[in-house]
């Protein structure tokens, strides 16, 4: 153990890094909690199973093999290499060197796995970069909502991952060469670094500096990256887990019931039904009535807002959306991205970037009139045209690897348009009045409802007489 100024410095850097992240996480928690309350308690074992399968097990990723395989490399690399991060932390604080070496053969295997995964991560990241930046990119990385900041963000993540891996290899290779020059035995097995030793200088001082540079670059890089996450789509590496845990367990076709309307309708049908008193503020005064449906982010359920922070903008939802693939304005990914941007515009922004400032111009290029005066999620970001294009087919819900449900948000906003603004397309208003007056969405008389049976018996008679 060589306790030195380096250890004090490291401790300060680590505290600053984690403290800053905790501060940012609190802001995001506050953002999510502006959403409407929704009881998601219970069903713990079912929820844990789902989390294991979908989040840890990546089961929904494997609908597309190539990206699933590449993602798996980066994901497993992230999990395994984090074990080494624990070692780095301990070494950094206590001045030890390769603290985990007491594991013996397990340490050998761990280091070897790390190195191989590290190299594979670089390969996967290059493939990801190519898929996004070739001309034209993979279709789901196109689209107006994915220009400007979202595009830059995606590339920054890939560059940082390469830098982190490069730092790891610099550290290992320099350390290995240092040991070789001294004729000492180095704990661990380093299949990739042992190939790289030839490229490194032979000066002990230089190697020592390189080892320290690699070490510091890796851990400082990780801490910086950690604090970049809240500004980035890469936040999904954390949020995917709670998001899957809190995803819906009911059949996808089941749309939420609006309790307040149930009370109203029951009271209409049965005058003796007592509508529960509206909720009051803690001081007893009446609260402003909650609107039907959602106009802004705080009208959505907190789970919908959690969705927005779990989205990695992969576009699998949009690429299977029947409205989107036939050229309509709707993009489920954009609805989710808009929700996050609006939350950060209205409430708390993360530390580094305010994504809405960068992406908005590009996103709205194809939309006509945006109500800048009443800047809310609906109309300010999402236009009614997008919402009315949805066929509620659940393809986006099915496609999302982390169980995001864009459909729920779409229906909530439709509810606001219809129930608060009476702003449904005219043809839908005709359908509504048909249901109201005739008990059918078409303009047929209810007395004709049994007419289908007339022909049946005629045909029967013919069959008998023939």
């Amino acid at each position: 153990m060589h306790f030195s100024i380096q250890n004090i410095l490291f401790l300060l850097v680590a505290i600053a890094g984690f403290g800053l992240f905790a501060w940012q996480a609190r802001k995001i928690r506050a953002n999510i909690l502006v959403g409407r309350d929704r009881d998601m308690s219970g069903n713990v074992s079912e929820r844990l199973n789902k989390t294991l399968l979908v989040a840890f097990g990546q089961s929904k990723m494997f609908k597309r093999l190539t990206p699933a395989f590449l993602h798996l490399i980066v994901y497993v690399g992230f999990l395994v290499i984090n074990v080494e991060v624990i070692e780095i932390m301990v070494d950094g604080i206590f001045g030890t060197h390769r603290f985990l070496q007491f594991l013996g053969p397990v340490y050998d295997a761990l280091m070897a796995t790390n190195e191989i995964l590290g190299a594979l991560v670089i390969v996967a990241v290059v493939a990801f970069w190519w898929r996004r930046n070739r001309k034209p990119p993979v279709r789901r990385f196109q689209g107006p909502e994915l220009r400007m900041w979202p595009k830059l963000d995606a590339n920054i993540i890939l560059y940082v991952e390469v830098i982190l891996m490069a730092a790891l290899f610099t550290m290992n290779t320099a350390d290995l060469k240092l040991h070789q020059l001294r004729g000492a035995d180095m704990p661990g097995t380093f299949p990739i670094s042992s190939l790289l030793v030839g490229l490194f200088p032979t000066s002990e001082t230089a190697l020592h500096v390189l080892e320290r540079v690699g070490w510091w670059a890796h851990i400082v890089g990780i801490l910086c990256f950690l604090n970049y996450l809240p500004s980035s789509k890469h936040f999904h590496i954390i949020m995917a887990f709670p998001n899957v845990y809190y995803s819906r367990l009911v059949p996808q076709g089941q749309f939420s019931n609006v309790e307040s309307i149930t009370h109203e309708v029951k009271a209409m049908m049965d005058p003796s039904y007592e509508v529960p008193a509206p909720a009051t503020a803690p001081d007893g005064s009446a609260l402003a009535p909650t609107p039907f449906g959602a106009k802004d982010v705080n009208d959505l359920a907190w789970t919908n807002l959690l969705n927005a922070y779990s989205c990695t903008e992969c576009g699998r939802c949009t690429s299977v959306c029947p409205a989107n693939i036939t050229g309509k304005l709707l993009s489920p990914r954009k609805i989710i991205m808009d929700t996050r941007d609006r939350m950060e515009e209205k409430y708390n922004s993360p530390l580094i970037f305010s994504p809405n400032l960068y992406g908005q111009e590009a996103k709205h290029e194809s939309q006509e009139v945006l109500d800048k005066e009443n800047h809310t999620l609906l109309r300010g970001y999402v236009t009614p045209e997008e919402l009315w294009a949805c066929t509620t087919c659940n393809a986006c819900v099915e496609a999302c690897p982390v169980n995001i449900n864009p459909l729920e948000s779409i229906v909530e906003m439709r509810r606001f348009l219809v129930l608060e603004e009476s702003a449904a397309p005219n043809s839908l208003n005709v359908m509504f009045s048909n249901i109201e007056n005739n008990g059918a969405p078409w303009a047929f008389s209810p007395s004709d409802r049994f007419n289908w049976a007339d022909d049946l018996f005629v045909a029967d008679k013919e069959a008998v007489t023939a």
Partner: protein
Amino acid sequence: MADLAAQGETPEILFWVGCAGAFDDRYKRVTRAFVRILEHVGVKYAVLGMEESCTGDPAKRAGNEFLFQMQAMQNITTLNGYGIKKVVTACPHCFNTIKNEYPALGGEYEVIHHSTFLQQLINDGRVKIEGGESYKGRRITFHDSCYLGRSNNIYEAPRAVLEALDADLVEMKRSKANGLCCGAGGAQMWKEPEPGKKDVNIERTEEALATLDGNAAALDNLYGVESGNAGATPAPKANAQSSIIAVGCPFCMTMMSDGVKNKERENNVQVFDLAELVASAEGLNA
């Protein structure tokens, strides 16, 4: 139903006809086909007739929760009044709404889609698929209804029914959980589509036709259908009889039929509901 109740009887099942089944000229044929099957196997069934009303599905999907709940409560009052326990319907939208959304409003029933019901009849040997039209060697592709498939995970029942027909069943590239919507769900049935490059039902019909024709090149031109295993679709067989797009939903029926007409393929491609196929295979022409 009212007549039956007056006689003090309760039916085995309540057949929920649905608005399309009652009013849409094309889907009335499906209603009749299903009734013939029910009569044929001797299931004691009833319909609500004029007492039935829209389930409220299109209102709810369009955001009119108030209208939906009015419809739902009214229907629940009717159904509960007759003591209905088991509901069968040929409409996936009615099926989904009654099964999943009525319980929260006091309507708890065992709800079965007719594809599941037909599968049970075939499994139990009550429908034998013989004596009528033969589908041997005819190409059939099944178009999954979103509200049956993704919404309620019913993928196998309609396929089991089609397999019993001994036809040449082919799958579209986008099928089951990855199926493409016909374009009519979510109240789209009652409005013009938003501006875009193409209507959804045309895209889906093109896919169905390309699959039936074994035309891999046409498949590759569809949006979002990934090419690569183009050779996987078998070449079409020389077949004098027309190919079939099978559906299990009134909206899909309308959208796919319109698509086939749009592509001017009515002469050799027909759109049929599962109940119609079973009825005609059983010699119960509707």
